């Protein structure tokens, strides 16, 4: 009679695996890679000069309240529409930023807004609100560039970037320049 081969009892294998699993579960930290990018302006000797009508001033106080062009803005979400209205200035309102005709390589002559956003905050402003304002401004820029790209090329700006069409991307960039100044601008 043949001897039966002894089997190893694997019942406790699950326990061991569970132990390891729980260890890794506890140790895992999901690293945050998300955030908002910003490029600081290099230090220059003199500040740039802008006409007052071209500057959109956003002031943030230590209570995290916004003062945009001298008016209290309550919901922060309204900032986007406001910036867009200023930027486009379709009614050619003399109080709003002017546009100049500019030659853009690959597109020809286009009207380019001269708007500059001046963001000033108090020493005691919370960092959280600052980041929020930045992110709103970034998303406004994204939308404006997307609209321009669709108008000019029929594809969104994101798509142009993905396709690697560097010439087109840089034309859109110069068509919709977006300057955020955090220094105190000197009014002429």
């Amino acid at each position, binding site marked *: 009679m043949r001897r039966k081969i002894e089997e190893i009892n694997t019942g406790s294998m699950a326990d061991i*695996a569970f132990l390891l*699993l729980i260890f*890794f579960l506890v140790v895992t*930290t999901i690293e945050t890679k998300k955030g908002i990018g910003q490029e600081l*302006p*290099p230090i220059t000797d003199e500040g740039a000069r802008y006409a007052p009508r071209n500057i959109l001033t956003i002031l943030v106080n230590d209570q995290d309240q916004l003062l945009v062009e001298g008016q209290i803005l309550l919901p922060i979400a309204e900032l986007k529409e406001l910036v867009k209205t200023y930027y486009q200035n379709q009614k050619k309102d003399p109080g709003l930023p002017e546009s100049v005709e500019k030659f853009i390589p690959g597109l020809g002559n286009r009207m380019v807004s001269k708007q500059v956003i001046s963001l000033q905050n108090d020493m005691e402003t919370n960092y959280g609100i600052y980041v929020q304002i930045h*992110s*709103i401004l970034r998303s406004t820029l994204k939308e404006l560039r997307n609209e321009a790209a669709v108008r000019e090329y029929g594809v969104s700006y994101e798509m142009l970037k993905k396709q690697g069409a560097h010439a087109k991307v840089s034309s859109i960039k110069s068509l919709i320049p977006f300057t955020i100044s955090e220094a105190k601008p000197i009014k002429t």
Partner: protein
Amino acid sequence: MFRKKLPREKLTISTAALPDIVFMLLFFFMVTTVMREDTLKVQVALPAAPVLETLNNQALTATIFVGQPIRTEVLGAQERLQVDDHFIKIGQVGAYVLAKREALSPQMRSKFKTVIKADKGTKMKLITAIKEALKTVNVLNIHYACTQDIPKV
């Protein structure tokens, strides 16, 4: 006729596949786990923002943590800066970031970014000071770390 009752075996659910399932989960977590590199000495609750960009290469960054010390009772509630495993003063930020950048190969230096992981309650005074310090050493790319804020429809 009456059938004679057979001694029924107890019905059990086979758990043979259980280790396989657990191992699968285990491997998933083993692969995705990134061991925390720095031990945090400051409290950082990241701010939430709606539109976010993703950081591409974490090897090309220097991270500065900003927040109140965890051991507030010993170190006080004054916000501090932390890099790697130690506190630094605002005056040392420039030198630290430059050293980090110099450690990279020359063609990679233009992609270098400073990541600021600051608590949302930090006062702008400190953040502005960091930015000024970065400007003086001409390291101009910043990335503010945030958490995703789902926009309300």
